């Protein structure tokens, strides 16, 4: 798709979020929506990351703390389950790992270039409470 230059746009121009006119967007999950190319959902900020969160499903209790506090709509929660991270939109801020309450954590920050399977194989053990 070609875009007009900023100096070719007229004042009052509209940027569409979707390809179709649907006034019930709130009822559709992201994967059911027909996003326009002008919706930032179609873009990626993956190259902002230095660290990335890796998700370990085995420890997760689906509390959704990570979902509510992610600033980048990058935690994929469906039907009350935490499914994982949307690596196109995650900026690697580390908030999700910080607010995750499990022991050991279900989200841990690793270097962007680390392999996820290797990261999962090195998952820390449950920490004993310090007295």
């Amino acid at each position, binding site marked *: 798709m070609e*875009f007009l230059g*900023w100096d070719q*746009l007229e004042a009052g121009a509209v*940027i569409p*979020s*979707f390809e179709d006119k649907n*006034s019930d*967007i*709130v*009822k*559709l*999950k*992201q994967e059911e*929506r027909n996003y326009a*190319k*002008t*919706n*930032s*959902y*179609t*873009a*990626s*900020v993956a190259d*902002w990351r230095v660290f990335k969160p890796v998700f370990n499903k085995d420890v997760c209790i*689906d*509390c*959704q*703390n990570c*979902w*509510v*506090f*992610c*600033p*980048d*709509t*990058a935690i994929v*929660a*469906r*039907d*009350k389950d935490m499914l994982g991270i*949307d690596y*196109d*939109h*995650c*900026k*690697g*801020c*580390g*908030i999700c*790992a*910080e*607010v995750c309450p499990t022991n050991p954590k279900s989200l841990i*920050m690793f270097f962007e270039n680390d392999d996820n399977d290797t990261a999962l194989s090195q998952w820390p053990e449950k920490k004993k409470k310090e007295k």
Partner: protein
Amino acid sequence: MSKIIKNLKQFSTSNDRFEGAHLLCPGCAHSIIVRELLNCTDDNLVIANATGCLEVCTAVYPHTSWDASWIHIGFENAATAASGAEAMYKTLKRKGRLKEPDKPVKFIAFGGDGATYDIGFQFLSGAVERGHDFTYVCLDNEVYANTGGQRSSSTPRGASTTTTPAGRVSYGKKRYKKDMVAIMAAHGAPYVAQVAPNKWKDMVKKYQKALSTEGPVYINAMSACTTEWKFPADQTIDVSDLGTDSLVFPLYEIENGHKLTITYRPRNIVPVRDYLGVQGRFKHLFKKENQHIIDEMQKAVNEKWELLQRREEAGI
């Protein structure tokens, strides 16, 4: 009818209308606040956004991050745009010219503290006095963040900003933070409240109340700014917790200009210095010659908390 949100699991079934790949800093609280607000309702939304980090970073041409009608407007006139849209909507409805007249629509305005406390102040005051049915949300990060960190009338005393730099001759800003919640309550607005993103349940409750209130509503949202408050990006929620638990940002609401209710009482109140200590903008206050500013701030926080409690008790 308002959406039922009993717990976080249920809240997480919301279909987001604020998309990722906006260009706000990693860890920015503005977007956490916006997501909590948009996800608390299924109604259609018309949103006006004053210039500031939120507007600039969520509409970088050719992209928009908004899955709702969203108006990109000047620095000073988010309240004007929202009230104009609301007035037009009412007129079209009266004339029978709406395509879906039974669908509920809510009008929202977002502004930073610069846009709200300073530059858009008279426009907000006017819109509230005219009684438009809209909710104004101030994303209060206590600084003009988008232009590089200049002080606003929301910046607290003692904070170092680019226009009130701390150094050999100064401890930072000398003037006090404006009490915007009290000012908006004094307009007689039916609902005014202070919220913080770390207390999501309190926030959702207040947002739902705000959207179902007929008439103008003002919400002051504490928005911890990793860049200008100077803390690591993963600490946004922790810093916010210190903000609410030190009572620097007490959570309360005021109905019909007078009835005050405290909505969050920290189990363990933490000292103000703990909140200051995690932020680079207050680092200089820990020097020996500036310690009296911290003591002064603690005293002011105690007095304000006392006042809020007395007002709540009085129930008048």
